[in-house]
C-alpha cells in the first residue's frame, strides 16, 4: 500500500529526455514503478519506407544524436548484407575509428550526467571538458561534431589525411591521462561509493530473464558484447578485450563504462595506426533482390538490431529498429523498488537511457489520413 504518488516526468530537471514514471512511495521508500514512453515519437520507421536507400542512411543516422554513427553503421551493414558486398579495408578501419570515438563521447557525456544526478556538479564540468578532445577529433575527421554521416553503401564518404591522423593521435594521448584521472576520482571518492554501491542491484538471473543488453548486462557478470560475438567491422583484426564486472549495482555499471573508455582509446589509436593506403568505397550496382537481412552492432548503450526487408525496388519495404534502451527499460521495476526517492535519478541514469532512440516509431502523414484537430491532441478530455 502506498501513500504518495510522485510523477517523475515527463518534464523534470533530472531527465534529459521525456519519460513518464509514476513512483508509488511510502515515506521515502519506493513500492512500485509504472512507466510510460512515447513522448519523443518521431515517425522514423514509416519515413524510411518512403526514401531510397542512399537517403535513408542519412535518416537512420538521425534517430539519435548521441549514437548517430552506430545507427548509420548498422543500417549500412544490413543493406550491404542484402547486396552481398564487402567494403575495402581502409573504409573498415575508418568506420571503426568513428564508431569507437563516438562510444568515447557518449560515455563521457554519460559520466557527466551521472555526476550531475548525484549533485556532483564538478564531475559534470570535468567530463564535458574532456569530451571536447573527442569532439575536436571527430570534427577533424568528418567535419561535424555530433551527427557524422560518414557511411555510404560500399564504404565511407570522406577520406582521412595523414595530418588529421597525427592530430587525432595527439588528442587521444592527452585524453588517456584525463580519463585515467577521472577513473581515479570515481573509484576513490567516498560519497560516490556511498550513493552507488549496493543500489540498483541486478543479478545474472535478472539479466537472462529480461534479456538485458550492453554495459548493464556486462556489469552483472554476463560477457555479452556484439563486438566479441559478431566480430563485425575491424574488431577481429584489432583484438578486442571485453570488460566485465560482477556486482551488478550502480557502481559496477560505472566502472564498466569507464574501463570501456580506456579500451576504446586503445582501439582507435591502433586502428588509425593500421590504416594503409587504398580506396575508401567499392563500386556498387544497386540491384536489390527480394530478400530480407538482419544485422547487429554494439552501440554505446548495448545491442542495436536492424531488420531490412526489400521488395526489389530502390526503397526499403520495411525497416525495423530495436534499440538497446528499449530492451533495458524493462528492468526499471527491479532496480527502483525498495530504494528511496533520492536513488531514482542515479539508478535511472546508470542504465544510460536514450529515450529518443526508444520512441522512434511511426506517425501517419496528415495529408493522407485524418486531420487531427488541436483539441484532439489533448489526451483525456
Amino acid at each position: 500500500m502506498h501513500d504518495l504518488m510522485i510523477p517523475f516526468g515527463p518534464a523534470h530537471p533530472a531527465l534529459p529526455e521525456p519519460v513518464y514514471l509514476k513512483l508509488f512511495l511510502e515515506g521515502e521508500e519506493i513500492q512500485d514503478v509504472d512507466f510510460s514512453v512515447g513522448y519523443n515519437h518521431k515517425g522514423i520507421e514509416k519515413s524510411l519506407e518512403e526514401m531510397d536507400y542512399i537517403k535513408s542512411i542519412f535518416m537512420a543516422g538521425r534517430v539519435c544524436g548521441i549514437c548517430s554513427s552506430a545507427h548509420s553503421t548498422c543500417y549500412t551493414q544490413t543493406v550491404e548484407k542484402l547486396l552481398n558486398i564487402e567494403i575495402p579495408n581502409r573504409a573498415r578501419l575508418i568506420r571503426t575509428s568513428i564508431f569507437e570515438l563516438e562510444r568515447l563521447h557518449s560515455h563521457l557525456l554519460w559520466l557527466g550526467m551521472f555526476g550531475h544526478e548525484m549533485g556532483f556538479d564538478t564531475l559534470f564540468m570535468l567530463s564535458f571538458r574532456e569530451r571536447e578532445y573527442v569532439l575536436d577529433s571527430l570534427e577533424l575527421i568528418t567535419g561535424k561534431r555530433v551527427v557524422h554521416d560518414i557511411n555510404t553503401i560500399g564504404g565511407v564518404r570522406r577520406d582521412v589525411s595523414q595530418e588529421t591522423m597525427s592530430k587525432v593521435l595527439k588528442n587521444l594521448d592527452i585524453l588517456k591521462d584525463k580519463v585515467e584521472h577521472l577513473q581515479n576520482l570515481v573509484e576513490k571518492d567516498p560519497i560516490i561509493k556511498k550513493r552507488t554501491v549496493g543500489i540498483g542491484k541486478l543479478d545474472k538471473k535478472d539479466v537472462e530473464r529480461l534479456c538485458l543488453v550492453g554495459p548493464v548486462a556486462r556489469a552483472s557478470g554476463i560477457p555479452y558484447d556484439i563486438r566479441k560475438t559478431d566480430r563485425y567491422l575491424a574488431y577481429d583484426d584489432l583484438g578486442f578485450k571485453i570488460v566485465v564486472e560482477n556486482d551488478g549495482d550502480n557502481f559496477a555499471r560505472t566502472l564498466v563504462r569507464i574501463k570501456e573508455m580506456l579500451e576504446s582509446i586503445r582501439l582507435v589509436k591502433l586502428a588509425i595506426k593500421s590504416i594503409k593506403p587504398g580506396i575508401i568505397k567499392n563500386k556498387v550496382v544497386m540491384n536489390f533482390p527480394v530478400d530480407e537481412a538482419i544485422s547487429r552492432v554494439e552501440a554505446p548503450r548495448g545491442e542495436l538490431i536492424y531488420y531490412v526487408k526489400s521488395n526489389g525496388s530502390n526503397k526499403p519495404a520495411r525497416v525495423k529498429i530495436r534499440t538497446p534502451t528499449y530492451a533495458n527499460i524493462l528492468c526499471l521495476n527491479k532496480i527502483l523498488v525498495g530504494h528511496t526517492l533520492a536513488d531514482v535519478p542515479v539508478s535511472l541514469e546508470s542504465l544510460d537511457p536514450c529515450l529518443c532512440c526508444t520512441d522512434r516509431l511511426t506517425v501517419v502523414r496528415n495529408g493522407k489520413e485524418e486531420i487531427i484537430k488541436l483539441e484532439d491532441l489533448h489526451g483525456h478530455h
Partner: protein
Amino acid sequence: MVIIEVFFISIFLSFIYEGIIRKVAARMQNRIGPPIWQPILDFIKLLSKERFEVQNSNFSLVSFLSIISVIGLITIVFMFPFVGILNFNWDFILLIYLLVFSTACFILVGFSFPSPYPLIGSTREIILLLAYDFPLMIIILFFGINYQSIQFIPNNLILSFPLLFVSFLFITQAKVGLPPFNISEADQEIAASFLTECSGFELAMFNLAKSLKIFVMVSLTTIFFFNPPNIPMFFLTSLFVLFIGILLRVILARFRIDQGFKFLWIFLLPLIFIDIIKVII
C-alpha cells in the same frame, strides 16, 4: 549604527557573498562564472515578474512567511558585536530561536502547496533540521554558559576549540543547504523543493532569505571562533571561512538524507564532546 543602515548593508552583503560563492566555484571548475553582482540582478528581475497564485494553496501565508523570514534573519545581524543593537545577557537563546525560526518558515511554505515536490522538500528539511540543530544547540549553549553574551566572546577561540570549529563548518553547510548537504534542495529529485510553486515577489524574498542565511552563518562562524577586533579583519576572516565552504561545495557530491543524518550525529557529536570535556575537566 542605525537600524535602516544595518538592514540595507546586510542585504547587500548577503547578495555579494552568494555572488562570490558562484564565481569562485565556477573558477574552480574551470569555467568563467557569473559576475559577483549577479544575485542582485536576479533579485531585481524577479520583482518584476508575475506572481501566480496556485489554486488550493495557502497563498497569503506564503507571502507573509516570505517577508518575516527575511526580517527574522536580519534580527540576527542586530546581535553582532560591533553592530550592538540587540545584546543582553543570554542573548544566545534568542539566537537559537531565530536560527530555527527561519528554517521553520521554509518548512511551513512547503506544506502550503498541494504539490508533492514541496511536500517532500519540507519533510526532508524537517529531518535535516533535527540532524544539524542538535549539535548546533550544544555548541551555542556551551558558548552561552561560558560567556553570557555574544559581545563578550574572546578573540581567537579557534585555538582553544579547533574541533568545535570543524563541526561548526559542517553544520553551516547543512543549515545553508550547500553540498554535501543540499538534500532538501536537490533539484534532480524534487524539482525546486519548497520553492517549486513560488514565483515573482515571493521567490525573490525567499532567495534573499537563503542568501541572508549564508551571510549570517558565515559571520557567526567568524564571530564565535575568531572575533577579530575591527571590521576589515572581520571581512577578511569571513571570506576565509566562506572559501572553506566553497571548497567543500565543489569537491563533494550530495548525501542521501539518512547518510547525512548519520554523519551529523555519529561523526560530529563525538568531536564536540571532546572539546567540551576539555574545559570541564
